[in-house]
């Protein structure tokens, strides 16, 4: 299954605005994307509550997975989003 390992780049972690941007992007994807951190169970990337519950901070490694048509492209773009500092974009 296509997989990407990414380090969270946002200064405030995968919370608040960065989480919203990521979840909204994942919800638009035509395939089902999951996200997990460490050995924990993968959760749907388009579930805001599950993504928040990961508690990922800046520097935390997370793993994205998806299957189906275009999975690689989707994972690339979501991985890029996660690695950026989405707080810095705000200003």
């Amino acid at each position, binding site marked *: 299954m296509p997989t990407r390992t990414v380090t969270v780049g946002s200064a*405030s972690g995968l919370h608040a605005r960065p989480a*919203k941007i990521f979840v909204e992007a994942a919800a638009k994807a035509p395939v089902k994307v999951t996200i997990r951190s460490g050995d924990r169970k993968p959760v*749907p990337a*388009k*579930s805001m*509550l599950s993504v*928040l*519950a990961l508690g990922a901070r800046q520097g935390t490694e997370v793993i994205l997975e998806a299957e189906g048509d275009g999975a690689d492209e989707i994972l690339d773009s979501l991985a890029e989003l996660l690695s950026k500092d989405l707080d810095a974009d705000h*200003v």
Partner: protein
Amino acid sequence: MSEALLTGIGVSAGIAAGPLLRIAAAPALPAPLPVTDAEAEITRAEAALAEVVAELGRRADRASDDTVAEVLRAEALMADDEELREGVREQVEAGHDAPHAIDGAFAAFREVFAAAGGYLAERVADLDDLRDRAVAVLLGLPMPGVPAPGHPYILAARDLAPADTADLDPGQVIGLVTEAGGPTSHTAILARALGLPAVVACPGVLAVPDGTFVLLDGASGRVETGVDEAGAKAAATSAARVAAAAPALTGPGRTSDGYEVKLLANVGSVKNVRAADEAHAEGIGLFRTELLFLDRAREPAHDEQVTAYREVFAAMAGRRVVIRTLDAGADKPLPFLNQDGEPNPALGVRGLRVARQRPAVLTTQLAAIAEARSLTGADVWVMAPMVSTPAEAAEFAAAVHDAGLPRAGVMIEVPAAALRAADLLRVVDFLSIGTNDLSQYTFAADRMCGDLADLLDPWQPALLQLIGVCGEAGRAAGKPVGVCGEAAADPALAPVLVGLGVTSLSMSPRAIPAVRASLAAHTGADCRRLAELAVAAPDAAEARKSVR
């Protein structure tokens, strides 16, 4: 309800008449019911969640502030969640009815959030709010929070938090009354910013049944219940006519015999400048720079600061802008300063004191202010918050002049500084009295403590006496002394402050017209007489009465 008179502290002048409605409380979970049709129960629960999402979306659409809209949309996203719906489904299938299934589904996330601590633990309140909203929909009750009945009403609450009032609709809410709170509480500041009559610290107001017609006087603090509706409306209309006449008066602030008092606006960013212009402010008396620093993991860079300051300076070209250097600490902690763990933050390293540990924060800010000034034509004055001694003032003035800025001043927020105002004016060009903090430190009463509201009343004679010490020092030195706290926004207090020697008043733009009208109704001699009466009064209530 029979006629009754409740009394609180008037914090925003004006008369309002209308039905009283309370902020709806969170609904209690009903007794569990057996589930006969699981699919129907799931549909009912999902529809309630969908209504919560839709309602938050509507509020976001209505919100005039972008930040508020974004917060509401983020909250909506948390309720529009497939894992949450999955949790609800599992709960119903385990035999729980819709309200309990929703409670259970949120509880699973609540536990994880609470255990994680920090940011996530703070989101527990959001989860509870979403659950309460969905349960209210299921029970056919109003959603918790500020009512939106579609007609004008007076809002009653124990106290108002910023979250309650972020998207408050001034088309429907015509007055505010709270059981707790004080003159510097969020309710009071919001009311003055919106121009709504308001009374705080009003015991008994929550016992008044919803829908009771009341007459509220935001100047005297009186709230009359069970009044004659027609009479109350007439009183409100005539008061509104008087208030409407005030903006007709424009131009610089002055007493009836021509003594000039600059009327300035308090702003946080260029967004507030338009309101200042609409009120014919003569300049900016307090440009707060904290907004730029809030929620930041790192200090904003020089160029970013230049841009933010330049916007305001450019909009005020040719006019005075008093900019305050970073006022961090206490109620405004900043992540990048790592101030966690101070046992008593209001008495800790805040305001100018931050420069003791982090001098570069101040020098960077002064350099950015100087550059922004050189790019615009504003008359820029710079002042430091939380100054206690002439030595601190001298050091700050030197830093300001080293940065190439011509005018340095200090805020008077600490009694020690007020008592030594004359010494301070030997080393700085002006003083600006922050009455909210000066009250807090003079009376040893926390600004956030509603139970001590009476001590924080800006009419307290001891506070006025300290302002008088500053005014006298300003007169002797021939240097300006302003007031930029909430006290400056009280039309009845304005002549008293001027009589005490204050030469400028800076406030929420909305408050300017009424203050201008009040000054125009008094001579300089009136002001001095009223000031003497107020300072001589035994307490705040008598001080208010003495100037009537």
